[in-house]
């Protein structure tokens, strides 16, 4: 019956649906597929922003993995992801649990925690620079006030990346909080009623009802944050410029410096492909692990 129906349809009918998706697909190809191909093609060359100078095959990739700075940069990026993503997941969930109520006060607090999310990265780094500056910053002012020794967060290797992570968490905590709040409100209420009747403790209710019910959101939050935090750029560029001693330079800053400062566009393009691969692998691994656990 399907076949006979299709037979009757004119060519126009068959293809007209395409008109709805065509405008987007055109942009998709132009702005995503074509640049991806250009980027990959450039990664096989030596050249600068003004043109390709020679074909070098996969030499740029070989160079990258022999470049201790790049290896360090990968570790820096992973370190940052490890510092931020679990914090986003845990803090976001805690905030959501605490603020999942209809009081006016909770609404005000929810608004506060989400507010910093709307600021742009340059404003955020401006604010945090004035918090973290060793002599004039708010942290130093407060430390002096209580008689403690101010810490130079951004110029010590041990504290620079954590400081960038704190800045980032301050900036972005609103998103995971709101996502968890939405999930909590969809947990069927009768489950809680049943638990209350059984006299289950608060902790037990959380473990056996709340957490399993928001598992999908947990996965969503983790995947979204992994993708976002792998792309660290502005905070590091504006707060530390990659220092001290290359300890806060993320992959994206490496790409920017290689392409725009050092005029090694092919090298930068190769690094971009590796970033792409890392994000794809991390997101897929997370998805795979969580869906397997679902099945088990």
């Amino acid at each position, binding site marked *: 019956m399907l076949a006979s129906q299709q037979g009757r349809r004119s060519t126009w009918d068959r293809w007209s649906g395409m008109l709805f998706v065509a405008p987007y697909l055109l942009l998709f190809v132009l702005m995503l597929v074509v640049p991806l191909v250009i980027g990959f093609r450039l990664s096989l060359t030596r050249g600068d*922003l003004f043109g390709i100078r020679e074909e070098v095959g996969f030499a740029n990739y070989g160079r990258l993995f022999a470049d*201790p700075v790049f290896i360090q940069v990968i570790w820096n990026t992973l370190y940052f992801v490890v510092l931020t993503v679990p914090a986003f997941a845990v803090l976001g969930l805690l905030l959501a649990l605490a603020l999942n109520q209809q009081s006016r006060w909770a609404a005000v607090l929810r608004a506060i925690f989400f507010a910093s999310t709307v600021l742009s990265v340059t404003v955020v780094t401006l604010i945090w620079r004035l918090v973290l500056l060793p002599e004039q910053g708010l942290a130093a002012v407060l430390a002096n006030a209580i008689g403690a020794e101010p810490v130079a967060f*951004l110029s010590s290797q041990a504290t620079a990346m954590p400081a960038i992570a704190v800045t980032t968490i301050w900036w972005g905590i609103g998103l995971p909080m709101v996502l968890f709040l939405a999930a909590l409100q969809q947990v069927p209420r009768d489950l809680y009623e049943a638990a209350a009747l059984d006299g289950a403790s608060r902790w037990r209710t959380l473990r056996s009802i709340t957490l399993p019910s928001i598992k999908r959101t947990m996965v969503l939050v983790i995947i979204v944050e992994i993708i976002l935090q792998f792309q660290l750029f502005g905070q590091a560029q504006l707060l*530390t*410029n990659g*220092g*001290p*001693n290359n300890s806060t330079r993320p992959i994206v800053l490496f790409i920017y410096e290689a392409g725009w400062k050092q*005029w*090694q566009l092919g090298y930068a393009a190769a690094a971009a492909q590796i970033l792409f691969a890392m994000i794809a692998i991390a997101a897929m691994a997370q998805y795979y692990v969580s869906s397997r656990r679902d099945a088990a």
Partner: protein
Amino acid sequence: MPLRYLAFPLAALAALSACGERDDRTEITVQRFFGACQAEYGDVIDPQEAEGECGIITAMINQFEAENPDIKVVENTVFWPGYDQLTSQIAANGPPDVVTMHSSAIPDYEARDLLEPLGEDLPALGLTADDFTAAARAGVTVDGEVMGIPIDVWAPLWHINLNLFREAGLVDSQGRPIMPRSTEEFLEHADRFVEATGKPYFIQVTTKDLAGPSRIFQVYMMQQGDPVFPDPRHADFDNARGREVLKFMRDVYAGGYSVRDQDYAANVSAFLRGMGGILVDGTWMVGQFDAAAHDPDSPLYQGYAVRPVPMMFDGPPVSLVDGHNWVMPRDSSRTPEERAAALRFLRFFAENDFQWARTGHFPAYRRIIDSAQWQGLPHRDDIAIITEIGQPLPNYVRRQAPIELIVGEEVSAAFTGAKPIDAALRDMERRTNDVLQSF
């Protein structure tokens, strides 16, 4: 529904395009660093009333516009050093008409044929290449071709808080600061200074803005004679000289004689607040610090001096210099009228270079260096020797801007103790060679 969303931006766009007024003036785009200070100097058209790089250049451009009503200057202020943007603009075929460029960066752009040679335009500017000082001329000349119009020659200097030096007894009978003549003497003086004042002897950039540490390192390397860049493709840092320099810088830092955890802005602020003896900073600050020395509220009041970086190693007298220049990127869409207007702008700057030299920079023109007017500016006789002993890094070395960042990162890692000296020298050399061999 989406229509409603679309209506507003479209209306806004239409309104925006409608408000662009008709303007018959020839428009030139002038791109520069040196900071933005429209708030303070936006209305000043007499450079004499301005202080500092940003103030003076803003006022000079205002003056040019006032005197040339047929030319509209679009001033594009980029953050230092601005090469990321310039590179993007050139790649996009939309470069400015004239743009500030360090002498050390000109060879990069010249090699890719991105700049217009200006040698043939010199007569139109009322100039010959002989009008430039030797250092300025060397800075804009690549393979015998004049690629830009010099603005200045600059050098890193030691800016001195004389009030604190007096406290530490580091002044001679005529009240002049006593400079160290060796690294041992440096440490000795530093010790005395810290003892007497409780403040660090040396204010240097230790974090984030890495051009500073790089320049200090290069000066000390040059003071030992042999070239750091034996040829265009190689750097030679990983040697006994490099070790000696980094060990000295490490001693200064580890001995507690240097400030810690300061970027460039913190440096300037610390010096102005009287928080240390010697600030390593460029010629561009002389004018501003001298102004502070005349302000009774300033810790520098009647207590500012400036010197070239003293010779503390065994080589010949030398000072590291670079220069600022105007260059004209190639642009096929530039009309003859626009080009002529841009040349008038360059001519104006050449004629008024004295105003720029008030910042503290060395003028790019012999007639100004030789003038009583320049020599009569404060502190100039203390640093004028640099016009004779100043040397840039060789101009066959490409990519000096990113190399400066690499060297600075490794140098600061070494002297702050984040990385062993040997490892820093090795990495510095390897990373620099990587860049030098990447094109």
